[in-house]
């Protein structure tokens, strides 16, 4: 199918279809069990009608019907089981699709890499990833299986009624050509509901969030109380407007409901007249209590699959909307060297510092042109290099190149792919969890003793020992409770813990005050003394002083005069 459907995979609908391929079995099972349940319903109605007809028309004693009663009970039980199985299989299909899609997205975003994601609102992106993947649920769990039932069950019922009484079947058939019309109506109703409602709901939610986000401002201007009324009238205004659309949107399902009700009524009256012998035309004279009752009982079932589908229609609309968003996410260009994330095994490097060679490498971006290079650079094991230069001169790009976040357009970057790298920028990355959890992100296997050692090297010892819970102290959202300097030193402790032979630091002190900066510089001195290879992009003289070599970048290349060695000073 991958070849045949490739053309429409670019539409949300095609994409949703493509995702269902792996769970086809579950979807078929769900539909199959749904059909079984439908058949059992027909059998149940048949048995009910049979028993009644036997009792009333044939005067059969109750005891002789015990067998049919037992059969009826069995049928009811099987139907319940099939119904349970149908829904459970749908749930399973949905879970598997969501799991797969989520993995696909995470893989893709990892390949897009930190540089590709820079400037994007990652919190928003992450939230969107969760919500939109969850929004696929109903489509696979309910809508798709029901879609198949709609195509099968009404036809089977129609065939049965045709066999019982063709005139009654014609009443149903008369509404049958209307079924596609119903579907279109229901669809259009749901579509309209979803397009207009969705926009309105989003706008209203946006209004609410907007006012909540700006609450401080409203408080400061003494406008908070007035805004409560405003929030109410916005919601109330939304209600008035949406009721206008709902009046129309609900009509489509009301039409469906109407036909279902009227069909039952017409059939009931037709059968009644037929049984009385008032209708001499066609098969009416052959109607019996059994066939009449059974037709009556089957009439609502004829419409039931469609009514259920109408209820699930919003699942489809939700999934289409989500697919649109997810596809956009999958279109983000990959900026990374390939297979980077597969090198999870860290080679046991004996040398404490990594060697780096860059030969004639350059990097350019579509809108900005060449941002780096061509440059050639060799860094010896254990060397500390500072990169300086105005912002936009390519310092960060060079670090990203070394880290493998971007690939050189030309030239060559030689860093052992199995080398672990320590990375730290001006925004310390902290996760929800304990201090230890945060440290172990760099070295999952590290012992408590190693953690404490790293903490000491980053000058956080005093703080940690003052905490009643020590390293197991929980940090709140976004490292709540740590000052900027403390957070940066925690990130630095991670660097110490990692033993990575190559350390890349992107303006590590840029957002710190003077005191914190001094502390971080002291710790960094220790790091350099450990013999690791360290590359620092910085503006700070204190950090430049640490370096063996200071390289000045200007417009993406090393300026000739800027390169100086601290050793020769």
């Amino acid at each position: 199918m991958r070849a045949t459907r490739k053309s429409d995979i670019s539409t949300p609908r095609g994409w949703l279809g493509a995702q269902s391929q792996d769970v086809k079995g579950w979807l078929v099972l769900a539909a199959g069990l749904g059909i079984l349940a439908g058949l059992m319903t027909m059998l149940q109605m048949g048995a009910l009608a049979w028993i009644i007809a036997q009792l009333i028309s044939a005067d059969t004693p109750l005891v002789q019907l015990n067998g049919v009663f037992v059969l009826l009970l069995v049928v009811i039980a099987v139907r319940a089981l099939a119904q349970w199985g149908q829904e459970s299989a749908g749930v399973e299909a949905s879970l598997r699709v969501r799991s797969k899609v989520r993995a696909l997205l995470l893989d893709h975003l990892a390949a897009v890499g930190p540089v590709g994601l820079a400037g994007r609102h990652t919190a928003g992106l992450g939230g969107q990833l969760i919500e939109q993947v969850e929004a696929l649920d109903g489509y696979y769990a309910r809508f798709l299986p029901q879609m198949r039932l709609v195509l099968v069950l009404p036809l089977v019922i129609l065939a049965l009624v045709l066999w019982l009484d063709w005139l009654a079947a014609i009443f149903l058939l008369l509404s049958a050509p209307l079924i596609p019309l119903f579907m279109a109506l229901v669809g259009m109703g749901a579509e309209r509901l979803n397009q207009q409602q969705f926009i309105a709901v989003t706008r209203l939610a946006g209004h609410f969030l907007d006012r909540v986000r700006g609450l401080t401002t409203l408080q400061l201007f003494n406008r908070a109380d007035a805004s409560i009324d405003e929030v109410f009238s916005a919601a109330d205004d939304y209600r008035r407007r949406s009721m206008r659309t709902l009046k129309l949107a609900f009509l489509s399902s009301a039409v469906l409901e109407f036909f279902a009700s009227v069909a039952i009524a017409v059939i009931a009256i037709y059968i009644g007249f037929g049984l009385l012998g008032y209708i001499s035309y066609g098969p009416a004279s052959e109607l019996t209590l059994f066939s009449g009752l059974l037709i009556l009982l089957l009439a609502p079932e004829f419409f039931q699959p469609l009514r259920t589908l109408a209820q699930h229609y919003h699942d489809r609309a939700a999934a289409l909307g989500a697919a649109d968003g997810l596809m956009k996410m999958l279109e983000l260009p990959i900026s990374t060297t390939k297979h980077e994330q597969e090198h999870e095994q860290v080679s046991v490097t004996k040398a404490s510092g990594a060697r780096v060679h860059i030969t004639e490498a350059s990097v350019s971006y579509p809108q900005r042109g060449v941002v780096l290079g061509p440059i050639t650079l060799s860094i010896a094991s254990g060397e500390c290099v500072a990169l300086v230069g105005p912002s936009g001169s390519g310092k960060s790009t060079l670090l990203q190149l070394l880290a493998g976040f971007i690939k050189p357009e030309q030239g060559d970057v030689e860093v052992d792919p199995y080398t672990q790298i320590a990375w730290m920028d001006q925004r310390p990355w902290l996760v929800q969890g304990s201090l230890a959890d945060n440290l172990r992100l760099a070295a999952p296997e590290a012992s408590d003793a190693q953690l404490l050692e790293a903490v000491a090297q980053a000058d956080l010892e005093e703080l940690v020992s003052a905490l009643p819970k020590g390293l197991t102290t929980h940090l709140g959202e976004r490292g709540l409770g740590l000052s900027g300097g403390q957070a940066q030193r925690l990130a630095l402790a991670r660097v110490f813990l990692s033993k990575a032979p190559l350390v890349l630091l992107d303006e590590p002190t840029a957002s710190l005050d003077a005191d914190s900066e001094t502390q971080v510089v002291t710790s960094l001195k220790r790091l350099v003394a450990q013999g690791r290879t360290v590359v620092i992009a910085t503006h700070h003289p204190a950090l430049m002083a640490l370096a063996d070599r200071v390289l000045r970048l200007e417009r993406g290349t090393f300026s000739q005069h800027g390169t100086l060695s601290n050793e020769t000073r």
Partner: protein
Amino acid sequence: MKPDNKGSFLSDFAPWLRQLRQRQGRLWLGALLMLLTLAAAIGLLALSGWFITTTAIAGSLLAVGAAVSVDIYRPGGGIRFFAVTRTAARYGERLYNHDTVLRLLADLRAGMFAVLTRLDGRSLGRLRAAEWLNRLTADIDTLDSLYLRLLAPPLASLLAVCGIALLLWFFAPSVAVPVLAALLLTWLWLALGQARLGMAASRRRVAALDRLRSLTIEQLQGLAELRCYRTLGMHRQTLSDQEQDLYRDQRRLGRLQALGNAVVGLGVSLTAVLALWLGAGLYTANTLSGPLLVLMPLAVLAANEALALLPPAFTQLGATRAAAQRLNRLVASRSEIQEVEQPVALAERPPKVVFENVSLRYSSASPFDGDHEISSTQSLLALALDDVSFSIEPGERVALVGASGSGKSSVAQLLVRLIDPSSGQVYLNDRNVLELSISSLRQRVGYLTQRTELFHASLATNLCIGNSQADEDMLWQVLDLVDLQDWAKELPLGLDTWVGESGRQLSGGQARRVALARVLLTQADMMILDEPFTGLDEATVQRIAERLDTWLEDRTVLYLNHDNRCLPGVSRTLSLRSGRIVSGAE
């Protein structure tokens, strides 16, 4: 706070039920319409069955030549009546109840917003986290459908079940009682049984989804570190474990709901068979007529529609309850900022500012994210302000400089009482700010916050937040002050131009200047300007600074900035580092 699993279940919902009571009339009417729909469905099927059987019996008698008269018009009319009523009632019910739900949404949104307006500055700062806000909206949405999912359907279906039993009672009390018992049992299972079995998993599901969300965001934010340290795979594993936890609960709930739906069919069908079997006994004993024998199981079968609404709602009851508990916690949160009994209005003149040994600790965790034990450790981790003392004379302009996070914003927040000090006093015109009326305080002290917060509204509306009485001339005047007059004049819609996300995008610098114009519009006697010129180019800063210098005359001014460059008329500079004044305090 650990969610209380056993605790009074009703008390979690009590505040929300009380809120619903304000619209009692509508709620009853909505439930009644729901019941009418169900009654019509029951009537349609039961009467049709009765009619067919009557005609069948009459037909067979007629066939053997007996004289029978059958009234075909009344039952026929009844059938048509029920058919039309069912459709009309259903349409009306949907429309009416949606209207009700949307009214409830407006009530709830406004109610929760009122709660939020009482929060202090620190809680509000925390609340900005996008995830938290989204959950808040989701929680409110969960509760506004409380009525339509958890109140009206069980009530209407219970009444329908009783109605069916009552109908049967007229013809055969000995059938009605067991039928009622069986249907009630089914009803109880669908409401209480489903809720009980699904409680733990549906509660967990929300938390598991939240955790998965934060792990995903963490992973995206930490891609650089994770890839460098080669621990992305490990983090993915953690994420995938969390995902499996979520799926386990979802699978359990999905199957449970499937069970509930199957039980609806099972319970109703079995009851119908029971009614038929019992009825058959009466029929063979000649105490029940044929048509009534048919009517009974058919009426029971129609209960299907009434009960089908219950499983989806009650299986997820735990999630609804968790939402209610979270919002209850938020509602219960008291702002630390309280006005005194008889607040004093701040006098109308440029105030004198005195800080006396002011210290500020991060307070305990806010009531609405209280899962972690931050409270005990926070004080150890950081002190926002440490024994700060200084004063500003009326009409003086002072710059408070320091790196970000050094405590500058805290000083400003203390002055306008977005927060209160942990120890020490803040005086304005020799009055402790705690004694002042908060509204007069904020009216007299204009504060340009570091974050630019503009609303999705027109330019004029955004400006008028600063002063609702401002006329158009005043708006143009402040726009001129911030050098935006020419720009605004060229906008096709002028002051009516929509700004913010859904309207015209302003550049960072333009937004900053609009915010500055807004605070100038207050004409306050004191101005706190936190990094007023962020994102502006040098030339613009020069132009604005010049005009501002004149405008600020005779006003007390506190600038907060990285340094004191380009701040017009600064007579003194206070330097703040890690919450301490290190120079300039005299």
